[in-house]
C-alpha cells in the first residue's frame, strides 16, 4: 500500500469511529510526509467520501456514520481553506453550488476551493440552491463561468432547468460546467445537458475551465 492509500485507509477508519481528533492527526501526518493540501483533498478526503457512500450502500455503516464522516471532512476543509489562498489573482469569476434540492456539497466545495487557489474570484453558494436565485446570483456577480453540482441522478433535471432559463436572465453565452457522481460514472453525460464540460475532480475542472475561459 502506498503512502496516500495508507493515509486514506486510516482516515476512513478513524472518521467512521467518529474521532475528528484522530482525523486531524492523519491530516497532520500527511503534511509531515509533504503531501500538499490538494493531495489531501483529492487522495484522502475525496476517496473517503466515495468509500463511505459505498459502505452505506452495502449496509456496513449507518446513515448517521455517513453523516459523521462527512461532517468531519467539511470541518477540516474549513480549517484548511486558508491554504488555498491564491498566489496570483485572475480576472475570472465563478459562481458555483449544488442544484436545487441537492444536499450533497462536499465535492462542489472542493471544486470551489481549487478555483480560489487558482486565482479565480469564487462565489460558493453551498447546497440545494433554488434555481431562480442561483441564476440571479450568477447575473449579479457577472460570472465568467457557472458550476452546477448534482450527486443524485434525480437532480439532473435541475441542471437542464437552469440551462433553459439562462436566456431569461441575460446569461446566454456564459459557460456552464457540471460535476457529481453521474458525470464520473458517465463522462460524456454533460453533452446531453447543453453544458460545456464536466470534470472528474477539482483539478480537472480547473484545467478545463482555464482552457475555456480566457
Amino acid at each position, binding site marked *: 500500500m502506498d503512502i496516500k492509500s495508507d493515509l486514506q485507509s486510516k482516515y476512513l477508519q478513524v472518521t467512521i469511529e467518529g474521532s475528528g481528533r484522530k482525523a486531524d492527526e492523519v491530516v497532520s501526518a500527511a503534511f509531515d510526509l509533504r503531501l500538499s493540501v490538494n493531495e489531501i483533498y483529492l487522495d484522502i478526503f475525496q476517496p473517503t467520501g466515495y468509500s463511505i457512500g459505498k459502505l452505506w*450502500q*452495502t*449496509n456496513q455503516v449507518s446513515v448517521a456514520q455517513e453523516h459523521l464522516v462527512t461532517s468531519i471532512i467539511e470541518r477540516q476543509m474549513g480549517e484548511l481553506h486558508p491554504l488555498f489562498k491564491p498566489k496570483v489573482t485572475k480576472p475570472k469569476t465563478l459562481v458555483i453550488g449544488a442544484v436545487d434540492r441537492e444536499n450533497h456539497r462536499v465535492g462542489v466545495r472542493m471544486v470551489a476551493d481549487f478555483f480560489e487557489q487558482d486565482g479565480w474570484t469564487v462565489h460558493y453558494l453551498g447546497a440545494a440552491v433554488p434555481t431562480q436565485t442561483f441564476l440571479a446570483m450568477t447575473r449579479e456577480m457577472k460570472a465568467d463561468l457557472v458550476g452546477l453540482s448534482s450527486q443524485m*441522478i*434525480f*437532480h*439532473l*433535471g435541475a*441542471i*437542464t432547468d437552469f*440551462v433553459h432559463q*439562462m436566456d431569461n436572465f441575460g446569461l*446566454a*453565452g456564459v459557460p*456552464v460546467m457540471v460535476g457529481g457522481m*453521474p458525470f464520473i*460514472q*458517465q463522462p460524456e*453525460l454533460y*453533452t*446531453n*445537458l*447543453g*453544458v*460545456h464540460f464536466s470534470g472528474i475532480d477539482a483539478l480537472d475542472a480547473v484545467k478545463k475551465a482555464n482552457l475555456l475561459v480566457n
Partner: protein
Amino acid sequence: MMPLSSPDISKEAQKEFKQNKQRIIDSLVERLLAEPGAFDHLGEQAENTLRAGFEFTSSSLEACMQINDMSLLANQLSWAKDRLPHDGISMDRMQKNIQEYCRVISEVIPQPYAVEIVNVVQKYLLPSK
C-alpha cells in the same frame, strides 16, 4: 450553448409520467401492501420503505427522460441490487415490484405513451434473476 438532443421518450409521454407520477406511486404502494404476507417482515416500515423506493425510482426515471439518457438507470439498478436486500427487499421481490410498477404505469398512463415508458423500465430497471 450546445443544443439538447432529441428525446428517446416523447415529450407527451414525459408529460404524462410527470403529471401522474404520484398517482402511480400511491396506487402501486397500495396494491403491493394488499398482497397477503408479502411485507409483514418490514412491520410498520413497510409503507415507508416501498414509498421511498418508488419515489426514488420514479424521480430517477423522470430525470433520465428529461436529459435523454436512459442508460443512467443501469447505475440505479446496480445501486438497488446492493442496497435493497439490506432494506428487506429481496431480488425476487424487487423483480415482482418492478413488474407491478409496469402494470400500474400501463393502467394510469394512456397508450401509447405507457408503452414507451414501460419499455424503458423493463430494459433498465427490471433485475434479472
